[in-house]
């Protein structure tokens, strides 16, 4: 069903946003 793919795409894009946020926090925590 179309909704399944939409959830998977949202998961991939959500993870990308999460990586960027974590990288920013990582840098801030150790600099």
């Amino acid at each position: 069903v179309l909704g399944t793919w939409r959830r998977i795409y949202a998961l991939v894009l959500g993870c990308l946003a999460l990586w960027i946020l974590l990288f920013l926090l990582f840098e801030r925590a150790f600099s």
Partner: protein
Amino acid sequence: MSRLDWIILGGALAFVVLYGLWKGRGSRTSEGYLLSNRDARWFTICLSIMATQASAITFLSTPGQAYADGMRFVQFYLGLPLAMVVLSVTVVPIFHRLKVFTAYEYLEGRFDLKTRTLAAFLFLIQRGLAVGLTIYAPALVLSVLLGWNIHLNLVLVGSLVMIYTVTGGTRAVSWAQSTQMVIITCGMLVAGILAVRHLPQGVSFTDALHVAGAQGRLNAITTSFDWSDRYTLWSGLIGGFFLALSYFGTDQSQVQRYLTGSTVAQSRLALLANGLLKVPMQFLILLLGALVFVHYQFTPSPLFFNPAAVERVLAGPEAAAFRSTEADYRAASERRATGARAFLLARGTPAEAPARSALVQAQVESTSLREKGVAMIRRAAPGTNPSDTNYVFLSYVLASLPAGVVGLVLAAVFSASMSSMSAEINALGATTVVDLWRRRFGDQGPRKELWVGRLATFGWGCFAILFAEYASRLGTLVEAVNILGSLFYGTILGIFLVAFYVKRVQGGAAFWAALVAEAAVVACFLFTRISFLWYNAIGCVLVVGIASLLSFIPSRRTA
């Protein structure tokens, strides 16, 4: 290299080749040989996609990049997950529905023969040259650091790849890549764990991160915008998106990986899994480089990590000055180590800020001495690239890691080199057969096409080895060849985007728009300081814009 290292290295390479040969047996038609009968599952395709993209220089150069410049390079990959989603929605269903063998085959049905031939020809040029460098770059590093004969290395790696790629085709490549990814992951994981365990006495992993962070080595995200800065959040998200869209959507060496999927869903999941895994994988490799940087904060490091370049200076008129700079650098390294320990002791106390300033000052002093040495190296060998990022990680491995692990890391480097080369000559062979030979001589039957495919793959393998042998005479032209991909990718992507989305554009408009856009991208390369990551976006936008404009001009036949 100990005997254990040789056993691990030899055993890993023999296993990859024999496993590839065994899994690749039984290809009886061109579809079996070129597309593995379209029966692959998503996790096999995903490993294959990742192994194709990650060449040996990825694993040698990326930690060195973190050592020299911090973790900013990770931004290069931020556009990749976006591209995976776009490709899954658009390209994958179209290619599957049309049952194409190559990406360029689609262009003839949509436009005309000359547009298809132009795209296939651009791919054959850029990938044909790049595949030689895929095996040349790591062979050069190994010859300098281990004294191995570079010519023997090139012939050995090239021959091992050709044994299973020529005989077994895409299925052999795909299964060999699965084992190669396991070897690569094990090698990098063990190196990372030991890099943490081999930190100096009293320095914990958290301490190491604080030392790296204090000196700007954990700078993963740069939010400012600068056209000439290669790695920022924006160049990564926008430029990296267009680059990934071009590479995964129009480069046959990647397209051929997901065309083997048994269904649209299998191909989609492979691309999306790649999008999920790629960014954290690169982050961890860069983190390994940051740990190597910390290691050399406490341990004396060479002024320059490429011993061949140092020997050239020591044989010239500036030998005494270079020796003096090396002595100054050693003294500065000791002050830096003292500063790093003082910083760790002062953490959490009021003395932290001045201790941090002292450490940064010691690092600045070391860096300026290193730059002084690099200037001498540049003068001793004008026309060569005085960068040692490719040598940092392997120098660290050879000097600091125990027997057995060195062999495992070298097996990972060889696996990465072989996995990229195998996929590339496999794709070059497929494009030669499908877009040139079959188009010229017509359908000659699956058996004959299988043998032509083997012959074409063998020919491209030989060309790769010969070009790699010649690459040592190219000097800085090697970098130009590396950048060649970015000069063509945007244009090819533009052709495909027009094909998919601008229905009113026909063959002539797309062809001429591509030629004009290509000239504009080459002009950007020659006459501007715009970073190469933007070339893909510029070329692509120009093709779409010009083709759309040309489509409004009535043709002679309809006027």
